[in-house]
């Protein structure tokens, strides 16, 4: 059923292209070839998918536990800030230590930023949707402040660009063999997805999180720590996004933390697009890896769409919105269809 929903969204996208004076067939063709047309395109797609996977796995954990985490953007930013500070503080550590350390720092930063709305929801009853959105705004402004002030590259009296100095060579994520831009971050993202799967579906903690998400009252009655579960779910969710922030910085070609074009330039809006990927992956960490690859492809293909058909890549953002709307709208139909089929099978 989600496949039909996506088809409907893509059909609307085709209409938009027509109205903007482009041929939808060549438009989607450009999108496809830009996304999956060759080894370099595939590598770029995997790199765009990497933060979506990390955010998406976090979304799986949060949504399964019944908390809606819209704060991926802020958690990515905090992860990036924490890991950057670590790399600036101890630049001379050997690579084998520094790389895991910056990833860990990213997880801590994002986890911290996720635990805040978790605690606010658990202990003060604050709606987590609103608090995570506000924390996104706060994080973006805080990043902008840091990059104009405390963390700005110290240089000669020139134009001040909002960026840090080039981070230590020892902190860069190593490239994978094959001659593409693929780096360790992609493997980290897939690894986190596997860990997320084991956490959610193969551990006692995951059982608790999911049962709290399914029915908080019954879980409380059964003696489960509901409040603690809410904080944990958002902290884990934030930690995944925070690692996303770290791999975006240390896997970037510039190897700096940059706020050029606003915070969304550096996060690639993965905090939102990761939600789309997770929903499409049925809130299952492993399927989310594949759906992230699909949506990563749309994002890289969007660039090609812009180049060949003069359709701004923003079309992809609009399409993602439509896909979310159509997919969540299709869920009830799916349920109805399933019950009808069951009845028919029984009779």
């Amino acid at each position, binding site marked *: 059923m989600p496949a039909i929903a996506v088809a409907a969204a893509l059909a609307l996208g085709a209409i*938009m292209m027509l109205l*903007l004076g482009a041929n939808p067939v060549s438009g989607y063709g450009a999108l496809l070839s830009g996304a999956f047309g060759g080894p370099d395109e595939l590598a770029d797609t995997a790199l765009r998918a990497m933060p979506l996977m990390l955010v998406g796995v976090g979304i799986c954990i949060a949504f399964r536990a019944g908390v*809606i985490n*819209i704060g991926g953007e802020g958690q990515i930013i905090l992860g990036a800030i924490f890991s950057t500070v670590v790399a600036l503080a101890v630049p001379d550590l050997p690579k084998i230590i520094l790389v895991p350390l910056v990833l860990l720092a990213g997880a801590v930063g994002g986890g911290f930023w996720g635990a805040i709305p978790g605690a*606010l929801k658990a202990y*003060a*009853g*604050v*709606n987590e*949707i*609103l*608090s995570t*959105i*506000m*924390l*996104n*705004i*706060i994080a973006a*402004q*805080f990043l*902008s*402040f840091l990059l*104009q*002030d405390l963390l700005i590259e110290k240089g000669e009296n020139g134009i001040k660009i909002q960026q840090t100095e080039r981070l230590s060579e020892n902190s860069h994520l190593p490239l994978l063999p094959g001659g593409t831009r693929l780096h360790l971050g992609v493997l980290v993202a897939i690894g986190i997805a596997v860990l997320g799967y084991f956490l959610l579906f193969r551990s006692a903690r995951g059982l608790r999180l999911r049962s709290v998400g399914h029915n908080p009252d019954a879980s409380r009655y059964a003696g489960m720590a509901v409040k603690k579960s809410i904080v944990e779910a958002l902290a884990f969710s934030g930690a995944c996004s925070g690692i996303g922030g770290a791999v975006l910085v240390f896997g970037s070609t510039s190897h700096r933390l940059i706020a050029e074009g*606003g915070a*969304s330039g550096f996060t690639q809006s993965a905090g*939102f697009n990761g*939600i*789309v990927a997770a*929903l499409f992956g049925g809130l299952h960490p492993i399927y989310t890896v594949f759906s992230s690859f699909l949506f990563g492809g749309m994002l890289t293909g969007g660039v090609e769409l812009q180049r060949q058909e*003069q*359709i*701004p890549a*923003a*079309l*992809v*953002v*609009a*399409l*993602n*919105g*439509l*896909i*979310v*709307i159509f997919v*969540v*709208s*299709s*869920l*009830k*139909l799916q349920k109805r269809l399933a019950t009808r089929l069951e009845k028919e099978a029984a009779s």
Partner: protein
Amino acid sequence: MSEFFTTTVIIATLASMIRFAAPFLLAALGETIGQRAGVLNLGVEGVMLLGAYAAYYVTLNSGSALSGVLVALLIGAAMGVVYSVVTLVFHAAQGISGIGVFLFGLGFTDLLFQKQVGTPISIDRPAEFSIPLLGSIPWIGEIFFQHSPLVFLAFALVPAVSWMINSTTFGLNIRAVGETPEAADTLGVKVNLIRAAAIIIGNSFAGLAGAALVLNTGIFQQNLTSGQGFIAIALVYFGAWRAFGAMGGALLFGLVSAIVTQWKTLGIVEGSTSALAAMLPAILTIVVLVLVSRRIGAPAALTRPFDRAS
């Protein structure tokens, strides 16, 4: 700091508080109506963007701000119809489908702006209208009674919405379907019809809020709203689901925005610190949510879809 505390500057700041409050207020009033009917609309931000772009584009090409505002209103209403279908017919999860509306509005307006306009051209802001007599009162007149018509409309809607919710049959039905839809249904109230009406009115207001925003800035840009629609949703909680409460919240946020802008202009806060100051409205929202969340209950059936069969 002393340059801030002069009569002229303070009056100008308070006047811009009213101007900044108008988009928050329109969006929050619309969201209040929807939530009283039991529907959470997280897409306000997206609808505001669509309304803002529509108002900008139409005003730019027709030269008439009025047509721009009307088109923004219609776009809002149309999005209301869409959201009604999504939430009432398909029972889509309201917290998530709203994010879809937001992403759609964000991407679609950016797309249209790049394709149709390209280089940012500013539109003439509508002339400020001074209310006869009241507008000529010293200080007070300048703060409260010399604004563009849309700002006056926003504040005039506060008592109107309050009256509608509390004193009309329609308002009674709205509250009924927001609290106990099943009971309302047994009394013959068409639950989903009332909810659809509330959603459409609410989204129209969000469209107007976008128009108010773009007519105040005079220019459209990608992500013009930058979170204001989301803040407006928080204001509904802040205002305890009441129109006058929403107004109080909108004024508070208008004041914070006005002071931050004024300080930036005067150079009291500079460069990097202004980014810190820009965090204030969001921090304030969280503090406010902490203070009000446990005290006042939301409409009992908020986000709960209604289906006769079940």
